[in-house]
């Protein structure tokens, strides 16, 4: 936890600068402003997110969770920092075209998603993550399909 908040603190400063720079290019054209909303349509603005969007539309969470419920932290200001980082990363990657053909979630974002599973399903999944410092089993190892399938 401690390490995490340190990370967020440093990132907050860095992001401030980057966000400013960002607005100068692609960001606004790719409807970057809508990136800051929670509307899944904001994500499909980039057609590379189309598969996930389609999957999510058919998936078990369509009615209960939007992209950002899983992909950004549920707390302030972490939510906005992560949005900033990813908003920048995605725009940058999209503009340069420098990203893998098959997008793979990075471990940082995978952790954000798993924390969110637990946030919503804490009661149900108490035995999976346990209490205290018990190692948590990876939700995605068994529930790889819930977000948008594969």
């Amino acid at each position: 936890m401690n390490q995490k908040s340190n990370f967020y603190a440093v990132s907050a400063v860095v992001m401030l600068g980057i966000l400013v720079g960002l607005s100068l290019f692609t960001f606004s054209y790719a409807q970057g402003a809508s990136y800051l909303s929670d509307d899944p349509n904001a994500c499909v603005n980039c057609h590379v997110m189309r598969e996930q969007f389609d999957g999510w539309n058919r998936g078990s969470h369509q009615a209960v969770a939007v992209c950002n419920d899983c992909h950004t932290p549920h707390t302030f200001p972490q939510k906005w920092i992560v949005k900033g980082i990813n908003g920048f990363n995605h725009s940058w990657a999209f503009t340069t075209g420098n990203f893998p053909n098959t997008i793979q979630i990075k471990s940082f974002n995978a952790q954000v998603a798993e924390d969110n599973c637990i946030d919503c399903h804490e009661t149900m999944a108490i035995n999976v993550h346990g209490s205290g410092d018990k190692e948590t089993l990876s939700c995605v190892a068994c529930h790889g399909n819930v977000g948008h399938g594969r």
Partner: protein
Amino acid sequence: NINQRKQEAVQFPLKVVEIAAGELDPAVWGLNFPSQYDSFKRTQENYGETPYGGSEPYSKLERYPAMIRLWAGYAFSKDHNEERGHYYAQIDQENTQRVQIVNQPGACINCHAAEAPGLIAEMGWENFNHTPYNDLKDQLHFGSSCADCHDPVTMDLVITRPAFRNAMEQRGIDLSQATRQEMRSYVCAQCHVEYYFLGDNKVLTFPWSQGLTIDNIEAHYDSYGFTDWTHAETGAPMIKIQHPEFEMWSTGLHARSGVSCADCHMPYVRAGSVKVSDHWLRSPLVNVSQACQTCHNRPEEELTERILTIQNTTASLLRQSEEAILAAIDAIVAAREAGVTDAELEEALLLHRGASLRWDFVSSENSTGFHSPQESARILAESINLARQAELAAYKLQAGK
């Protein structure tokens, strides 16, 4: 109502009693963990046969009569049944003819009674192993118990059986570093593994010095000419393999993908508003929806069909392997009758040994190939190859007379 459920969850675990360090009675542990205990008790239920597994303890010797000759001269050829739920671990051992026609050592108790760790602490490791089973059996009352797998205070998974700890140490694996997911297989690997009794003290040992594949295990035994028994018909120095589930699983794709024994045999089930591990350990074939569907988003029939396709293929190769080994036995017996000497037969006998232990590795592994389909087929291919070569070698010797 919702409020109450949340509390249930928060209060978990709900401690009714303190569980003492040596407590073996599942009913006592069950006071704190009623839903795990409820499912644990169901290992007593007979849910029937699956095509190759299940909980009906039918005689394997009757169903696959080839086994009687394949194991000729060894107690397994007298009594060996399909295994069933953990509830019967001690009961079935006590009742098998294998403890009656042979004077078995205490080592047998390691995996069949919750009392084992206590007796080991009391008697010492070597002493426990070599003391006759019959001298100790009256002290055994609980077959399988929570204490086999859990620490009574933290409820963490723990290794309670020395043979597994020793074997892993020998391989340079530090069990204290095991992840939670690894422990979900390691607790099973205390018992669901190939074993033998080493030396005069009959010390329970796992033959893993060279690794976990059948070739590694054979090399381990060959390295010092170990023999379980002498084949009654051919005189070959034989190895018997028992339940190598952990070894077979570890060569398979599920293991390499991080899927543990508990994932399939103890899948999560809902109990009220929390999910708990299903402690009714059994065939996933009667539980496909919980055991497989969470990871494999496919219809139940399709998943069942996947298991059966793999098993039918394995079974057809098992039958071919049995046929080949029986032919080898016949040829060796005929050669002996024609006057071929033991010394001349040496190569044929070693081929018989190699063929038989490979067949046994797949035959005695309880998933009928499912835990590692390609590897099971590979092993049987080699078994058949060796058996036919044994037959040929014996025939050549006979023709030479």
